[in-house]
């Protein structure tokens, strides 16, 4: 039994010490760069947790960075090259920046211009990202305004008959229309509720004859 008892082996301390701190620095030379900067919060002070909703996307999510409480961010292990750094926030718009890192580890930050790709407008590095504006996702519901109300077809429907009522009496003064109206009046007397179609036909036919007579009268006048 003793033979099978568990035993502990103590091996000498063969600790091979490697300096890991040096290894990290070595690697920076091998094209492992960092992109750093700071995101400024939106103006409004009452926004809680904007840090959690804000991400840094490099080349559309190839590298993703997160921001700290004070808005600073660092993206690690980026090989040399050209990158579009954008701040993604669901409510606020930030301008993207193109960061170029050459093989020697030199940085240049410039404005993104997709149309004139060779145009260089430098921006400071480390990046300082400021919100441009709030996204306007929504249409604004129309507010109640007097002009809107007046030009509302419904209101016009109400107002136009009123106007007609105002104008009609003046038209009454014209003797020819008076006659037409009399005819209509006669029709109205014949039946208490005249049929719409009849009323319209009589109105229109009457109107057209009146017009034609008017035109005739004018012609006569011209001849004179």
């Amino acid at each position, binding site marked *: 039994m003793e033979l099978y008892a*568990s*035993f*502990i*082996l*103590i*091996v000498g*301390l*063969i*600790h*091979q*010490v*490697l*300096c*890991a*701190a040096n*290894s*990290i620095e070595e*690697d920076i030379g091998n094209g*492992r760069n*960092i992109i750093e900067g700071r995101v400024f919060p939106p103006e409004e002070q009452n926004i809680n*947790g904007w*840090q*959690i*909703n804000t*991400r840094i*996307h490099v*080349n*559309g*999510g*190839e*590298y*993703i960075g*997160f*921001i*700290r*409480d004070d808005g600073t961010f*660092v993206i*690690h*292990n980026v090989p040399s090259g*050209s990158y579009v750094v*954008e701040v*993604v926030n*669901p*409510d606020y*718009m930030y301008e993207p920046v193109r960061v170029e890192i050459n093989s020697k580890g030199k940085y240049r930050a410039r404005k993104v211009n*997709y*149309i004139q*790709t060779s145009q260089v407008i430098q921006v400071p590095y480390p990046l300082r990202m400021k919100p441009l504006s709030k*996204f*306007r*996702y*929504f*249409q*604004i*519901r129309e507010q109640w305004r007097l002009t809107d109300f007046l030009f509302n077809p*419904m209101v016009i*429907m*109400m107002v136009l*008959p009123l106007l007609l*009522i105002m104008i009609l009496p003046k038209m009454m003064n014209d003797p020819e229309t008076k006659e037409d109206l009399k005819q209509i009046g006669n029709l109205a007397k014949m039946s208490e509720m005249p049929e719409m179609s009849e009323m319209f036909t009589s109105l229109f036919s009457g109107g057209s004859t009146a017009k034609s007579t008017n035109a005739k009268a004018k012609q006569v006048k011209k001849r004179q």
Partner: protein
Amino acid sequence: MGKLSFSLKPNFLGLLKFLNSFNWFIVFFSLVNLSVCIYEDQIGKFDWRQSYVGRIKFAQFDTVSTAKKIIVATEENVLAALNLKTGQVVWRHVFESASTGNIELLHVAEKVVTVSGSNPYLVRGWDSATGVLLWEWSLTLQNNDQAEFSEWFVENSALVHMLPVFGSHIEVSMYNLMTGQNRGSTSKLPALWTNEGCVLSAPYYTCLSGNPGSHLLISMDLTSNAVQLISKPLSQLITNEYDSSLRSLDGNSIVPGFILGDKKISMIKNNEFDFLSVELMDPSASVAIVDSSNGLIILQIWSDDEKGFFITGHSLATGKEVAEIRRPASGLSIPSPEISAVTCGTSRDVQPCRLLVTAQDDASHLLHQNGRVVWTREEALASVVAAEFVDLPVSDLDAAIESEFDQKEGSVWAAFSRRLQQQWQQLRTFLASLQAGEQRDHSQPLVRDYFNLHKMIVILTDVGKIFGIDNLTGEIVWRRYERGVDASRAVFYTRRHASLLTVVAAHEETGNGLIISFNPIDGSLAGERRMQLDTRLLQCTLLNKPDQEKLHALVLLDSEENVQVLPRSAAVHVDNTFMYVADKSTAKIQGYALRYDGKEVVAQKTWSLNLAGGGAGFGPDGDSGAHRIVGVWPKPSAERAHSPGRVLGDRSVLYKHNNPNLVLVLTEARDLHHKESWVVAMCVDAVSGAVVTSQVQRRARALPLAVHSDNFLAYVYYSEKHRRPEIATLELYEGQERWLEAGAAFSSFASNNKMALVSRAAYVLPALPAAAALTRTERALAARHVLLALTTGAIVEVPWAYLEPRRPVTPTPEQREEGLIPYAPELPLPAEAVINYNQTLHRITNIYTAPSGLESTSLVLAAGLDLFYTRVAPSKTFDLLKDDFDYYLIAIVLSALIVATYSTKYFASRKLLKMAWK
């Protein structure tokens, strides 16, 4: 005088010009208005979003902060905090989807610590309450080959990295958790006994080592200064040592331990193995050791195919079963469960144990110790493979009315009595609906609504779980888990309208075809049920012609080029059926003609196309310049085209080339030696094999994103030359004359020797898209919009008018009249066109669209890490009253008008009376 007219004349002309351009501006702004966006008060009215995190990899209860949470890290590279009571996401961080985002370690103490990436690694600290990043440092390993075997753990607020070099030694490094400073530097511990089967139960590393027959169980404390080995011969522990294996404990067990041979549970205590008296209840059981108010408890969970889910707890000290821990009521199916995290109240307050259990179907359940399920998260929905909108069946009443008109026979009286009966039924249901009121009853069967806006979304997930989701509420109506399904290339087919849906997938192990047919409304198996084929499938399609039972037959082409038709009786209907098979890596496309020869259906090779190009000779590797297929986009099946042509400004018609057999093939080639890359887009007629048109982009990288419908197509690529994403669009026209007579069905053979007119353009996209789709409406009357999901998490609706390749640089008056927008290189992606407003959707992979019964409205489902459903109206809701339509105003105006008429009539008669008296 003359001078004045002289100076006026050009001004007048200028005014005319101005007016003309103004006219164009009106057209332009009317188009701008096309981009619909919603009102702020419509948030959540037509849309819903469900946030997922993916299959849980690591989980730990956060018991420190006041708001109780579970911190999870997932296979989808997501770090999230879940509310303990509801299971909802409190905060969530989405890491890179590539291996740079892999989460290797999650440690929750006062702060949350994660290690992510794959050499170089990133160590990050998070605030558990708010989720804000606290610190971050990077770590690069020198030894890159072995880095994948790395193990991490946190011991005494130091991060320990362990890298075993099997059969040689173990490298152990300790780092300061917050700063990354190397505290004790790297030490190499000699360990000849290590192999792939070792397990880490921090801080011990345990292995089974030695020659067969004389196995030793060896364990070592990695963090102690002196190297101490604990060892024991295996023959002493178990009788049959050949099938022995090591397995670690789950659920962040508080004491180091392991499971030996799926049978014995051992702890490591005081540098000695301590085998417990409690043995494993089931070989597949998941075990965790937790601290509770009555001492340490060994929890075990497992699932039995017949008996269901089990959970037991034993006291470590006494070995007695804890009575409070009970299995949940039957009906809960948790296949192959694993304990992700467990917590029990340690102090005197009677806090029961709670377990977070993750099952094989990716679902996570939070269980109470008494067996109550607190909440369930269906994390399978974080990786959707295919989705289909299914029409709901018509209600019994509607079906009865329809059948009434079908019945032609019978006397007039019989028809009359039927009619009366129907109306009595209608009245009764109307009264019943009045009584029920607004609230919807869950027991009511799902039936189609008047505008067919209510549908069932059937979703197939990567893990093989199929869901039926109500599109209006987002509620999961049914779910079914199919084991052993390799769903990565699965396709849905609607076999019978609203009653039979078929998934064609492959078997996980054999790769042979697997067919699952089910009823999409309730999820029950139907038709062929689950059918296992004994060959691999190359291609499958659906027959256009249904049989007598309105069932569309499934035509399958297997790897030996044999054709199977399901059901077999439908083989006679196979006629004029063509198929093509594209091989992605070799870029070969093969066309087949299917024919019924009286006995069976045979596939005949008709054409083949090799798109690999001349670069294939350079070498076997993928970067040698040979083309590979990025994607193939046929036209959506059962698609309607509204008009056969376009009316131009001069009143002539430009006829569309509307070839239903057209397939867009995108290929990509890279030549690393010459730093060249090409993207080739080819439009191939899938029946005749003719190349209708093709175009090349040099120095570009293809993205697997394209849309194809009607006579237009668009695809996205990344221009390496300009370092920007671009979208290329094509439109195909037949010209001013039709090729075929009006109304004739399109024939690929008849139009084989004719050249289509192609208009092409490319536009700069100011953001990188991740998915693309076209809106679909019932009759294709409404405008077509392209939905682009961006990597920023927004879905943008772009009208086709902006993508149209016919946009002229300087428009002529005719083109202006036609409504063409002048060409601008950059596509506008305004915030108003974002259909998901500020609800960020992470990693969208697919957008599915479906028509509704309303011509104006298209239903949209975006799937990725999140699910988002909404409806869009590309030409605005022209067939619906406006949302804010003022019913009151129109009612008041109408009644006022009626009152006014009668009152004026009364007053008029009075006036007449007065006049008569005069």
